[in-house]
């Protein structure tokens, strides 16, 4: 059994080569009458002629979701080492201490979470 990370380099190489090969194949094989067709058609927006550029302003809520995701992702990341070593700490008698540590950590974050909900940061429909 291999426990290192080097096989993923080979894995990536094979996967990328496979995908590149298929993309190459699609550029080489094409229908005989493809010269007549339009290679660069306009974007399909339900058949209505396109107006302006698609890359406009976006609702700020998506941005809030991304910010909140970072914060809670970092929090989840701290739970992983805690979960891995919890059995060891329990065996050495420190289990309750470590559990209390993580409870404090989680409670402080729950305060932030409730603030977020109360302020309606993730309210997708405007109340008014």
């Amino acid at each position, binding site marked *: *059994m291999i*426990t290192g*990370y*080097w096989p993923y*380099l080979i894995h990536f190489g094979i996967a990328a080569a496979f995908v590149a090969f298929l993309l190459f194949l699609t550029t080489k094989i094409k229908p005989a009458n493809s010269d007549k067709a339009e290679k660069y058609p306009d974007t399909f927006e339900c058949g209505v002629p396109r107006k302006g*550029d698609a*890359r*406009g*302003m*976006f609702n*700020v809520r*998506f*941005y*809030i979701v*991304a*910010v*909140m*995701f*970072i*914060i809670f*992702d*970092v*929090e989840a*990341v*701290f739970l*992983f*080492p*805690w979960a*891995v*070593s919890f059995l*060891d*700490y329990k065996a050495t008698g420190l289990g309750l201490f*470590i559990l209390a*540590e993580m409870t*404090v*950590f989680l409670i*402080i*974050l729950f*305060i*932030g*979470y409730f*603030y*977020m909900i109360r*302020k309606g*940061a993730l309210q997708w429909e405007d109340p008014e």
Partner: protein
Amino acid sequence: MNIPEILFYSFTFILVGSAFGVVFHRNPVKSAMFLVLFFVGLAAMYALLGAEFMATLQVLVYVGAIMVLFLFVIMLITVRDEALLNMSSNAGRTVIITVLVLAFSLQFWVLLGGFMKAKGEHVVNGAAPYSTEVMNYTTGEKLLITGNAEVISYALFEKYLLPFELISLVLLVAVLGGILLTKHKRETLQ
């Protein structure tokens, strides 16, 4: 040159190349994609050093979360193609930035060279302060490993317990700050 060295230098090549891509590419989305490549390369570097937990977290947090936010912001602030074309890419500025980057990296190289004359031998030979045993199922032997999640947790919950608890406060402040900033934005922009 052995295989780890070859890998190290090829990852370095990717890292430096993608860092230059971030700075010099005119399209902000492509710059962000170069930054993604940079972070993935950094994760590969961590894995090469044996810090596997850091490697996975590098991808999970930086690539999976922070770069998504960056891309959202780039899409949010509406960078149009015309604005991109007006941004000059004159040769003079490119040369100046390149020279500056090279000068700084040379300086760092000299400084670090002074500190690292021992080539890290004391780190390799000295007993690892935190390590853990991991079972290899095929051979049945136990390997001593430094740098996985267990080792990190020993450091986190014993030596750096107070900083760990403070992190939760930092995250709390981040929640409050994020909400306050975007609240302000929402009232004025919409």
